């Protein structure tokens, strides 16, 4: 992640704050030139819905369900676990999650990059429409469910029915795959794949990678939704 943060970021302690109060603070910070940090998140739901920022934001603590949904232009770090629906409908930007994620991670993402250092639950990247998802751990079943475009990179293992209903996009898996759906087929890794992987991992600041990748593509000939 780039470092355009101010030397003295604005820090807010979320211990005693409600979701509305935190979101109001986030809204106030959208046009700020100073980096913004929220400490001690207490599993709040719906944090940062539809937010946009040009400076780095940071969350520490556990986030609840449907946080940072439809976010735009974010450069954000989350130091903790997150619940279901994290970064759903993401519009642009980059989010780095140090912990684990629940179900439907980056669901229906339009663009942008989400990097998860831990594991993700079921249906990671559901309905993905152009974003990019990197999970350094493993994912649950039905990852890439109904995805239409974009990229999912899984360092660990993938659960059952990988890519169920997928009509586009590419899924790379470094570990084992429990089962793939009929909507995907394994393909040989090509030079374009290597280039794409290298660029994405470079962007995510990830150096260590699996010894080999399996690549899966949709069997749909028409990838338009």
């Amino acid at each position, binding site marked *: 992640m780039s470092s355009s943060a101010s030397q003295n970021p604005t820090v807010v302690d979320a211990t005693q704050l409600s979701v509305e109060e935190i979101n109001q603070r986030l809204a106030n910070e959208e046009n700020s030139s100073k980096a913004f940090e929220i400490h001690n998140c207490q599993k709040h739901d719906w944090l940062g819905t539809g937010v946009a920022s040009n400076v780095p934001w940071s969350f520490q603590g556990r986030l609840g369900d449907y946080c940072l*949904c439809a976010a735009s232009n974010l450069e954000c770090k989350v130091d903790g676990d997150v619940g279901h629906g994290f970064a759903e409908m993401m*519009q642009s930007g980059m989010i780095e999650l140090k912990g684990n994620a629940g179900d439907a991670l980056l669901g229906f993402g339009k663009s942008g990059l989400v990097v998860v250092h831990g594991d993700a639950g079921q249906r990671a990247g559901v309905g993905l429409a152009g974003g990019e998802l990197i999970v350094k751990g493993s994912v649950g079943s039905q990852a890439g469910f109904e995805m239409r475009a974009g990229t999912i990179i899984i360092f660990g293992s993938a659960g059952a029915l990988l890519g169920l*209903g997928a009509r586009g996009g590419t899924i790379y898996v470094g570990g084992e795959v429990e089962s793939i759906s009929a909507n995907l087929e394994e393909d040989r890794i090509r030079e374009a794949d290597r280039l794409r992987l290298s660029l994405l991992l470079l962007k995510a600041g990830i150096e260590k990678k699996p010894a080999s990748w399996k690549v899966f593509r949709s069997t749909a000939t028409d990838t338009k939704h």
Partner: protein
Amino acid sequence: MHTLELIPRNIDTDWKASKETPPKNSKRQVNSSIVAPGFRFILSLQRLRRLLQLESLPPELASRLALMTKRFKGGLLATSSEISSVPIRDLPLRIEPISSHAMPSCDAIESADAIEVQLNQKNSVRDRISLEALKIDWPIDTVSIEQLGKKLQMLQRLAKSTIPVGVSLPISVTPAMVIDAFGWLTELPLNFVNLRMPLACLAPDHFARSHFQTQPQAIVAVLREWFDKANKPQVAIGVDYPWVDGYQAGATCAAGASFVSIDGYLAQRAPSTKPSTRGSDPLTLGLAIAGKSVESMIEQSSHLTRLQSEWDLAGDLELFALQFASVMDFS
């Protein structure tokens, strides 16, 4: 989708006057009184005319409708394009085709007029957002009630305003089974529930088919009772059903429905030069056509252009409306 829409009579909806300015009443007023006894009968004459592809409405139908609107202290509903100019928050519900190619965007969400989550029994998920409405399909078997509720609230927050939220339910079960399957509905922050009757997916000899054919009001009554018990009488219930006649639709409204769709009713009367598409089951045909929108079918299918010459839709509609009105008179 074409609907006969019922709006409480205490709402001032002079639609001609409201073309430039939305109705005075707020959404809160609409929602709070949506199930109030006594409805206002509103039928889109222009929409009907377009549907029938008539240059002008037959005088007898126009006068009949005028009489009915007077009886129900109602006014004239605008065309669908005029409806589009009115924020949906001022209507109990607008059911319009959703653009399937529109992709999610913040701008679209902020200007969305309604959120409708469509629960499907098959294993598919689609998020579709257009400038006019936001619609989400979820498979019933993979979504938890808690997740769904939180997602709805997230979308509400994303819209940055209070907009109606609804669930569209496929009803292919008996009323008793509805209770088991959808009892959690009352836990959601809903403004409306739209019942879809996907009879086309049922085999012709399926026991539920004959049940629905005679008792759609039973399911509505169950739902209405739930919402009343949950202290949520403001939740509007719509029914999309291939009505046998207007009496059936009227009885369903009397049982607690707030509006009914007449697509299925009309489509069942569609002529077809293709026996394979018409088949032997009018219900299946009705839903198949309704699913594609009668309007688009008129534009796209040459055989439906025979509507105006061979099919007395106006007469069917008038009869439907009269039957409907007679039930409402006595309810």
